[in-house]
């Protein structure tokens, strides 16, 4: 494919898909090790009432109010999950179950009670996003990457998700040591002065921000898949957390690129006329990578499992 075709039509969706995948996979490593991986799923459900409320308040589908509404709902959910967990003294999974079904139900109820029929706010959009539509029509070829006038026409999702990915990376880099220590041994972490409660909350809020930004661009399917699949596959490739992070980023990029290309061209190669959803295909690829790691990964057996003796 030539630059004239690739840059306007495929470059931006590819980059957005890749950045979204990385932004979710990075905190996903810690969430999987903390057995909180489903928090990505929870977040993608709980943002619905936030988005609907933002729509009711502004009366239009505009990005910033919806992002703020989604972020507000996500943070509210995180606080509610912690509150239910601590006050009810039940495990995190059960607390998430209670909070996210309640909030998702509230979102559906709000959606049904208000007139949103005129706008594009439906389940399919929420699940799959519309990665393919995030094209860059101002671009004419590779030269446009350096052309300020063409750059002004970039889809706003691209700088937004790029910024989110940078923020998430910065958080993980800056708090690497306390994150690692408190994920492994929370009690010990407290005794060396790490504020584990605050740090755990910051991790979940970071994940929530990544989820909302990715949700806006690519839908919730990718969010759920990328929080779990690349980190879980990466865990089976290595026994070192540092290396695991590297593998998870590599798997996230691989899923995004192969998923996007296969969604666009796979059906054509098979003789079908239409393309399939890129977001769905990216999620599928990450699942296949996870399956591959589970079959062939060098560190897939639980070394810590008690032996038969």
């Amino acid at each position, binding site marked *: 494919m030539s630059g004239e075709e690739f840059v306007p039509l495929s470059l931006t969706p590819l980059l957005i898909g890749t950045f979204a995948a990385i932004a979710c996979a990075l905190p996903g490593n810690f969430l999987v090790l903390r057995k909180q991986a489903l928090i990505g799923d929870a977040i993608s459900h709980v943002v619905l009432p936030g988005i609907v409320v933002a729509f009711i308040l502004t009366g239009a589908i505009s990005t910033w109010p919806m992002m703020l509404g989604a972020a507000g709902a996500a943070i509210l959910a995180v606080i509610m999950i912690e509150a239910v967990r601590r006050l009810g003294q039940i495990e995190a999974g059960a607390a998430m179950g209670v909070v996210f079904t309640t909030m998702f139900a509230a979102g559906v109820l709000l959606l049904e009670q208000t007139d949103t029929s005129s706008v594009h706010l439906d389940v399919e959009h929420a699940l799959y996003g519309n990665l393919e539509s995030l094209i860059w029509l101002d671009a004419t070829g590779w030269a446009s990457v350096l052309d300020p006038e063409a750059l002004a026409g970039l889809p706003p999702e691209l700088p937004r998700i790029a910024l989110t990915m940078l923020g998430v990376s910065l958080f993980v880099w800056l708090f690497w040591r306390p994150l690692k220590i408190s994920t492994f041994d929370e*009690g*010990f972490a407290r005794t*060396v*002065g790490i504020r584990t409660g605050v740090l755990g909350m910051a991790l979940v809020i970071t994940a929530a921000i990544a989820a909302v930004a990715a949700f806006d661009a690519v839908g919730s399917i990718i969010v759920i898949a990328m929080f779990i699949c690349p980190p879980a596959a990466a865990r089976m490739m290595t*026994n070192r957390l540092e290396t*695991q992070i590297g593998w998870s980023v590599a798997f996230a990029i691989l899923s995004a690129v192969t998923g996007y290309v296969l969604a666009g061209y796979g059906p054509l190669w098979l003789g079908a006329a239409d393309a399939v959803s890129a977001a769905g295909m990216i999620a599928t690829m990450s699942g296949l990578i996870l399956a591959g790691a589970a079959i062939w990964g060098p560190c897939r057996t*639980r070394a810590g499992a008690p032996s038969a003796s």
Partner: protein
Amino acid sequence: MLSLAAHQGVSIAEQNTEDRPLAIRGLTVSYGQKPAVFSVDMTVQPGAMTAIIGPNGAGKSTLLKAALGIVKPLSGQVSVFGAPLEKQRARIAYVPQRASVDWDFPTRVIDVVLMGLSRQLGLLGRIRGRHMARAMECLNRVGMHDFANRQIGQLSGGQQQRVFLARALAQDADLYLLDEPFAGVDAATEKAIIGVLKSLKQDGKTVVVVHHDLATVTDYFDHVFLINTRKVAEGPVADAFTAETLQSAYGGRLATAQIDQISRALG
């Protein structure tokens, strides 16, 4: 039970407890309706080895965790070397129960020991040659230097316990708090651990151990602290570790035969 505690309390109240390695006053901790630890006072003697003893569910680990700020007490004060806990973090080393962490965590033995240097390294400090040398030296003290690059899940229970002890040694503290370090370990590990703890004592460090094996108390420790939700007795082994105090801490849970055996061992 209370009269014994009061009896022990008199001698402690007379001492100046301000600069003690660990002084706990009126500590109460509750996880639900029922308190796990109720109104406990404890004063740890410097340069000594103290065992915290009591039946299962008596609040031994909870007492230690509250002293370290891991669990939040309902009431009570903790002071470490005469200052609030938060100011003295650098002087405390902690060995949690081995079963409290997931040993499948993707990390190597040496990385766990390096966690003991986290205060020294700070948020972004690079791990340098001297840090690695220090971590290896600590592994050497517990006889685990050959395992530095192993994944922690590949170790036996006793080896894991020794790695935890090496991490505490890396903290280079003045007060060492260990939660059941001898639980489920092999004889060689038990010997290695007690050897290290005795050498810490010789260096003037203070060691507090949550302990469950009554048979080894007189061999290993100088002081005991008996607890069954409330304090039962506290003091030098010869005074506080008696058939009488054990009976009141364990009640019917300790067979008469065991008590007789311990009384005989104590002379």
